[in-house]
């Protein structure tokens, strides 16, 4: 297998070097570095959005989620993604309309301007920091564990993590957002190819889709319906997950940035539709891998299942491709997130442009370092941590939507409510406060309360004075 890893690894590394050199331009402006010049076409747009969205979480997490919780996992991710692309289209239109004619410097900067209050930007930045960095950490850890399984005793797990962080930093430092978008495109194609090769092999094991479900049903009947054997996929869990995923384009800065840097409205809307189709194509084979795991490795730990389904049971070349595909998947998502955090920081800084740029780069380095520390100390299930991350950033959804959609002067009460919501959600994670109230999940309750508050605040707020003047004229 080592031979194949070298072959595919060198091809992948070569493509990365080519992409970063192609993106490197001497004396480029910070706008070019951070926002790729705002000129991303359809194919690159679809692939970069897909690569940032479908990461280690989809590659490893979803087969594992299907294996443990059964076919309801499709509702959890695919149905939510189908609805999310609709929100992406609508929100994409609104945010592009809002930022037209002004320089976009991240959601934090934009939201500060909308509320005419810097606290709004800081609140958003805080939620992104709190929920994206651990997610980046666990992705890095996922790759490190996988590499450790593939090459035991060659490097300690933290050594792999460090290597990944260093590649990520060097790469984004040389090429900026454009290089990250190119690497996303490489990863998007790789992910789709690898997941289908492995998925197909797993389906082949059963001899067909009908036989697959028949076999899995005989192993564990509950896998073929909701809420699944563990009773996790209840209507409430799925509804709260749907809302959290719907908020991804709104509240996760790496996606909002990608919407804004698309070349035109036309490419943005085609990107939304293509992304929906891409999501269906990527998630289908994860069912096959998950069902394969449920049949053969139902009682195994996640790590053991990954090692068996992705490495041991595959042809050497396919296993090597899986390793490279996984590195690519993790690298592009973590890269996108860390870079987006830098971009958000840039939007909050004031002063001379070269000083801001310098501080942003230091910020990216610091975020990477914290993510690296997390990758060593945190242990959790990939999908469930991803879900916490989506829900945590999703809490900011009503505040951002109100800021961007409203044409009125908005009361800062919405910022305080969002901060309170964030604090309550954070307290529920370690169990300081319960996560169920009146039989409703806390995250769902927070979405409802903040959503209703946003509507209430909009209806009671005054029209902007500027608008009034125009009316008077």
């Amino acid at each position, binding site marked *: 297998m080592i031979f194949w890893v070298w072959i595919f690894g060198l091809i992948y590394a070569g493509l990365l070097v080519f992409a970063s050199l192609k993106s490197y331009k001497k004396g480029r402006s910070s706008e070019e570095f951070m926002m790729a010049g705002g000129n991303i076409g359809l194919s690159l747009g679809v692939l970069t959005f897909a690569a940032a969205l479908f990461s280690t979480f989809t590659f490893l997490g979803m087969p594992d989620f299907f294996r443990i919780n059964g*076919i*309801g996992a*499709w*509702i959890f991710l*695919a*149905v939510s*993604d*189908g*609805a999310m*692309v*609709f929100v992406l*289209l*609508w929100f994409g*239109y609104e945010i*592009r*309309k809002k930022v*037209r004619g002004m320089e976009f410097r991240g959601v934090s900067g934009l939201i500060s301007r909308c509320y005419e209050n810097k606290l709004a930007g800081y609140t958003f930045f805080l939620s992104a920091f709190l929920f994206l960095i651990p997610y980046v950490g666990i992705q890095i850890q996922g790759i490190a564990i996988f590499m450790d399984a593939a090459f035991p005793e060659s490097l300690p797990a933290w050594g792999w993590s460090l290597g990944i962080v260093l590649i990520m930093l060097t790469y984004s430092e040389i090429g900026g957002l454009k290089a990250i978008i190119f690497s996303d495109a490489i990863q998007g194609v790789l992910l789709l190819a690898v997941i289908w090769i492995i998925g197909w092999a797993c389906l082949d094991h059963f001899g*067909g*889709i*009908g*036989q697959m*479900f*028949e076999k899995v049903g005989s192993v564990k009947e509950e896998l*073929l*319906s*909701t809420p699944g054997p563990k009773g996790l996929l209840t209507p409430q869990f799925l509804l709260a997950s749907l809302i959290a995923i719907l908020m991804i384009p709104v509240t996760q800065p790496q996606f909002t940035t990608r919407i804004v840097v698309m070349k*035109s*409205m*036309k490419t943005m*809307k*085609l990107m*939304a*539709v293509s992304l*929906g*189709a891409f*999501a*269906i194509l990527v998630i289908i084979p994860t*069912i096959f891998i998950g069902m394969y795991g449920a049949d053969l490795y139902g009682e195994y730990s996640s790590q053991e299942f990954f090692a068996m389904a992705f490495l041991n049971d595959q042809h050497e070349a396919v296993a090597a491709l899986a390793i490279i595909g996984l590195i690519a998947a993790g690298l592009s998502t973590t890269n996108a997130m860390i870079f987006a955090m830098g971009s958000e920081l840039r939007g909050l800084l004031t002063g001379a442009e070269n000083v801001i740029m310098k501080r942003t780069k230091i910020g990216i380095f610091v975020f990477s370092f914290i993510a690296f520390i997390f990758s060593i100390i945190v242990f959790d299930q990939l999908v469930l941590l991803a879900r916490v991350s989506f829900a945590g950033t999703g809490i900011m959804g009503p505040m951002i939507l109100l800021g961007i959609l409203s044409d009125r002067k908005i009361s800062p009460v919405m910022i305080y409510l969002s901060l309170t919501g964030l604090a309550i959600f954070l307290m529920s994670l370690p169990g300081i406060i319960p996560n169920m109230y009146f039989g409703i999940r806390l995250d769902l309750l927070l979405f409802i309360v903040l959503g209703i508050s946003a509507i209430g605040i909009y209806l009671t707020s005054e029209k902007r004075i500027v608008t009034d003047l125009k009316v008077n004229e």
Partner: protein
Amino acid sequence: MLGGIPYSLWTSFIITVLLVVLTYIGTRVHPGMQDEEDKL
């Protein structure tokens, strides 16, 4: 089960496809989108 595929998977798959189709229809009928395109 329908055609060897669990009922929940069939229905949720169809819903996903319909949502993507709905998004496509959205790109065709949203009046504001064309306006923005012209201005760009």
